[in-house]
């Protein structure tokens, strides 16, 4: 027998109570782990953004278009290496619930700017440039629907109507499969020719939703942004230019303050668990007052008993919390694979934070019972029946 086995025996001296406490702690840390992983996912949005990539949108907001003619003026700005444009298509496949992130793009430059994110063979690139109804699909998207090169598929829009058919559907031929060139690249997307889109929409022609710019050097980002926005100041469609990462995060920011949600949910769960576990630990130690008195009588020093009681609450927090972090990591892995959200993961930072919270929980709930055990008078304890 060791002090540890003694702690373990005391912890499980009332099995049902110990199990209920462990379950409560497990679920608190499961919530923490999953929300932390989701937060990490949102934090990572824009993680693939190139450091020298800027995005220009309408100053009102990104749902308002800009004239497509802006592209040539922007390409002429000093410090701009390349620029391209795109529109949000609002795509889905067969049914509205099968949403597909689809962009109508300037085929010549857009994929070149994103060559750091996606790998596309020279043959497929050439096929895409040559076919106005060609569609590039990400690897994950192709795998999800079983698509392959040469397949003809219809994609519908929940925004635009095709004036040629009067319907909201466009037909495409898959000419390229995009493979990820880096870990954070999202391959559940699709791209097609802006010209194919532009010639057939019933409204919004000759406009771009956003313009993506590659600067000659990231040090030029601020100057280039200022020059572009100054160029279109006082025009009917003023612009706002920022780094791509800031743009992506601002987009996510519209969903609400994820950090605040995580903090509030975890905080509420944590505070509740703290009170339940703290009260139960205090009760458990109080019930063992006489046993602690006997241990002191046998010669166990007060400091050692203090450590044992504190160790018991720390062990409880760890036994409940560590498996929860493990399970949340597995859940996040499953979610990442099924929804294609690259940042969904329990990172080392959040794991360390989780363990730190477990330690805090153990210390906070154990410190008062441990202190009471430390100060317990033997004669008083033995007198308690």
């Amino acid at each position, binding site marked *: *027998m060791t002090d540890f086995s003694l702690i373990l025996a005391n912890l499980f001296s009332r099995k049902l109570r110990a199990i209920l406490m462990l379950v409560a702690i497990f679920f608190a840390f499961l919530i923490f782990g999953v929300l932390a992983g989701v937060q990490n996912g949102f934090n990572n949005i824009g993680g693939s953004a190139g450091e020298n990539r800027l995005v220009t949108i309408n100053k009102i907001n990104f749902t308002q278009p800009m004239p497509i003619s802006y592209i040539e003026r922007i390409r002429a700005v000093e410090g701009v290496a390349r620029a391209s444009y795109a529109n949000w298509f609002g795509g889905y496949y067969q049914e509205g619930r099968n949403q597909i992130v689809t962009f109508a793009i300037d085929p010549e430059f857009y994929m070149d700017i994103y060559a750091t994110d996606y790998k596309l063979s020279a043959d497929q690139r050439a096929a895409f440039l040559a076919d106005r109804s060609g569609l590039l699909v990400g690897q994950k998207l192709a795998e999800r629907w079983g698509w392959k090169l040469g397949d003809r598929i219809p994609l519908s829009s929940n925004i635009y109507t095709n004036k040629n058919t009067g319907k909201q559907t466009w037909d495409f031929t898959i000419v390229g499969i995009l493979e990820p060139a880096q870990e954070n690249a999202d391959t559940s997307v699709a791209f097609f020719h802006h010209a194919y889109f532009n010639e057939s929409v019933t409204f919004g022609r000759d406009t771009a939703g956003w313009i993506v710019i590659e600067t000659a050097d990231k040090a030029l980002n601020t100057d280039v942004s200022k020059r572009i926005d100054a160029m279109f100041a006082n025009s009917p469609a003023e612009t706002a230019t920022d780094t791509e990462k800031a743009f992506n995060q601002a987009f996510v920011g519209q969903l609400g303050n994820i950090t605040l949600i995580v903090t509030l949910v975890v905080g509420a769960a944590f505070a509740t668990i703290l009170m339940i576990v703290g009260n139960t630990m205090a009760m458990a130690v109080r019930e063992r007052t006489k046993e602690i008195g006997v241990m002191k009588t*046998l010669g166990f*020093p007060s400091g050692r008993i203090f450590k044992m009681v504190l160790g018991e609450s720390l062990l409880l927090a760890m036994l409940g919390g560590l498996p929860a972090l493990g399970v949340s990591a597995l859940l996040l892995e499953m979610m990442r694979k099924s929804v294609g959200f690259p940042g969904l993961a329990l990172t080392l930072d959040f794991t360390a934070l989780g363990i730190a919270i477990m330690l805090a929980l153990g210390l906070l709930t154990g410190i008062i019972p441990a202190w009471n055990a430390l100060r317990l008078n033997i004669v008083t304890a033995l007198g308690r029946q």
Partner: protein
Amino acid sequence: MTALISIQGGAKRFVKGRETITIFDHLDMTIEAGDFIAIMGPSGSGKTTLLNLLGGIDRATSGSITFAGQRLDQMSEGQLSAWRAANVGFIFQFYNLMPALNAARNVELPLLLTSLGGGERRKRVETALQIVGLAERAKHYPREMSGGQQQRVAIARAIVADPRMLLCDEPTGDLDRKTADEILSMLQLLNKEMGKTIIMVTHDPEAARYASRVLHLDKGRFVEQVAA
């Protein structure tokens, strides 16, 4: 024989509100190594308080307590803990076993305070349980044993670290006559065969007959000393 433990000018007073309650005052007592002492007396006479002082779990208001030349009254709490672990075995009226531990682990508890390895500890636990006749109940939990068996486990726990002195507070107070006699015979055996010095507080004159000396404590004073 040589004195093992003695109390000189021992006093114990409690302050309750404005009142000071004296349990005993100017108490002198010497116990020789190998003695088996029974301390008797009416409730409130200070028997258990005296036992607590001799066991180093309470402190005298004044006076000195000496164990084999060491002054207990001058020791720190930590020193007293170490002294108890090395020199004293305690046996209580209600056994005071750890309900979460089986018999073997209860007996092993005092050995956690020694530097003995796991193998040696197991051997000592087996021996102690054999001495009290409970080797086959080693894996049983206190709730699975009778009062007499629990008290025998408590005796095994008290002797496992081979202390020089056993302090027993009403060790048969919760047992029937037959079981009480078995326990008392066992204590007598430990005294005679293993040389343990035993100080036993009891209300029971039958129990006191097993001791080699009986001290009567009344109103804080020894009123007579009887050779059993």
